[in-house]
């Protein structure tokens, strides 16, 4: 195996020579319901906790799929309107295409030790991060707390989200 020698020194060093402040807290918003929409937010939340950074996850709109019991392990890759897939739109629209692409990606991710969404959400909750559902979206989709996995700490308003996020960074995905 080849090892790459990474240079991890921060690039932007303030003129004063002071060390840049570290990030102590992040609030991550997951707003999309595709596989590529859900994983980055989960990875960032889990990654924050691994570094000892306080983290909260706020699921809104289709991001609710990640914490909905019946949906979370059925999340698929978007094969249409996703140039990164390198797949012609009409081909991507064929029945089953999204399923096939998701299967292929899931196999690759399992090899890289990516947990399935349900396990990932559980891991993040166990790491001490709060997981919240957006009230406006929950009302819009006609969902209740019962529809969500037990790791969800509550259904909160945007105002409550900002209270939770106070003093930290907000990341929208």
């Amino acid at each position: 195996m080849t090892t790459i020698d990474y240079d991890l020194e921060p690039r932007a060093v303030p003129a004063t020579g002071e060390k840049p402040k570290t990030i102590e807290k992040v609030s991550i918003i997951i707003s999309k319901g595709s596989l590529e929409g859900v994983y980055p937010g989960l990875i960032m939340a889990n990654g924050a906790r691994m570094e000892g950074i306080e983290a909260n996850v706020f699921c809104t709109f289709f991001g609710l799929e990640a914490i909905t019991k019946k949906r979370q392990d059925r999340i698929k890759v978007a094969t249409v309107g996703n140039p990164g897939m390198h797949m012609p739109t009409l081909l991507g629209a064929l029945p089953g295409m999204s399923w096939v692409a998701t299967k292929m990606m899931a196999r690759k991710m399992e090899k890289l030790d990516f947990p399935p969404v349900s396990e990932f959400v559980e891991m993040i909750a166990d790491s001490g991060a709060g997981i919240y559902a957006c009230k406006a979206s929950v009302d819009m989709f006609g969902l209740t707390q019962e529809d969500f996995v037990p790791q969800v700490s509550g259904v909160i308003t945007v105002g409550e989200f900002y209270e939770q996020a106070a003093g930290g960074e907000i990341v929208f995905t």
Partner: protein
Amino acid sequence: MTTMELVGVERDAEGFLKDPQQWNEEVAAEIAREAGIEELTPRHWQVVRLMREAYLATGESPSIRTLGKASGVPIKELYELFPKGPAKLAAKIGGIPKPRGCI
């Protein structure tokens, strides 16, 4: 200030050992104290040893998911044992490089 146990032990800017061979149990206990863990309990040792063995066997420090599964210590407890990031801190205490996995 360097305490007796850490004299001659080379570490990087974050406090990880540069050479895993310079590690011993006293070094581990001292690095743990620096991180605010006054005493390493058998449960801490279970995690630290697993991290170290996995690194020495594979050349890579395990991720938190692997650590949870392989050590038999649930993720929740890992964070209670090592509050500032279990994989990172257990690697530091175990004298191996910082884990670079994203999961």
